[in-house]
């Protein structure tokens, strides 16, 4: 067993163990932290595959962006020390069974299939990726690139519109006042 193999198995065990903890732990904040470790492990797997660019993107976007966003939303919406109620026993058993059978079926298909490995050397570089990304020719990816830019713009505007507080004054008619009413009632009740 070479060092590369040992590193791969350690990374895989780390990823899967932290992922299992992330979906089973009772406290939501710990769940987010285990997710963070799992994503870092996946970045390590990309480093092991020698695709350093994707590993860097993974760390920047997932670890630096999405997990921080999730943690902020936990702080905004939950008492993070409180334990979440667990699922009922029947649902747990049914989920475990269905997941196990699904995994067994999928991995059986993967195991029976023999993949024909390519014989060339895998050569990527950031300049190659960038050139092909903005190429308009046959293998170019300029159309999905432009579509993704529009998607990001729309997502940004949509986030602001959705998360914006409705105006508080009662003069605004219709939908804008409706979200306020149950909230006021709740506050009075509590």
């Amino acid at each position: 067993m070479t060092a590369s193999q040992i590193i791969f198995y350690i990374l895989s065990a780390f990823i899967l163990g932290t992922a299992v903890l992330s979906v089973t732990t009772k406290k939501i904040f710990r769940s987010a932290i285990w997710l963070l470790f799992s994503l870092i492990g996946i970045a390590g797997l990309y480093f092991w595959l020698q695709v350093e660019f994707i590993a860097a993107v993974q760390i920047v976007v997932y670890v630096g962006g999405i997990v921080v966003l999730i943690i902020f939303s936990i702080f905004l919406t939950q008492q993070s020390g409180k334990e979440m109620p667990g699922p009922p026993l029947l649902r747990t058993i049914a989920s475990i069974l269905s997941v196990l059978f699904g995994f067994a079926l999928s991995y059986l298909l993967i195991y029976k299939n023999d993949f024909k490995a390519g014989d060339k050397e895998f050569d990527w570089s950031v300049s190659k990726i960038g050139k092909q990304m903005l190429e308009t020719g046959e293998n170019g990816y300029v159309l999905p690139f432009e579509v993704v830019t529009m998607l990001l713009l729309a997502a940004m505007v949509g986030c602001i519109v959705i998360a914006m507080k409705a105006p508080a004054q009662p003069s605004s008619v219709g939908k804008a006042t409706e979200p306020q009413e149950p909230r006021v009632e709740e506050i009075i009740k509590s």
Partner: protein
Amino acid sequence: MSDIPISHILFVSTALFFIGMYGLFTRRNMITMLMSVELILNSVNINFVAFNKYLYPDKLDGIFFTIFIITIAAAEAAIAIAIIINLYRSHRSIDVETAEEMKW
């Protein structure tokens, strides 16, 4: 590097996918369900990179798909969290069982 067969990497990604499915089945809190979706998306990314590296090493399509999936996952997480926060403002809860009426 090549002393690990591709099926072992696919084992990791398949297991990660079904761990995410388990979280999606058992959790009833929207933020934890969102975390499970992130796990599923990551397993797909591992698949794309592994297939690109092992089976078609002279092309770059797997890497492009991975980059696009990461971008769309970021947008999706941002939108989902905006919706969750908005729902929390009106319902005081982000449990999916209490959010059966979305019209407020």
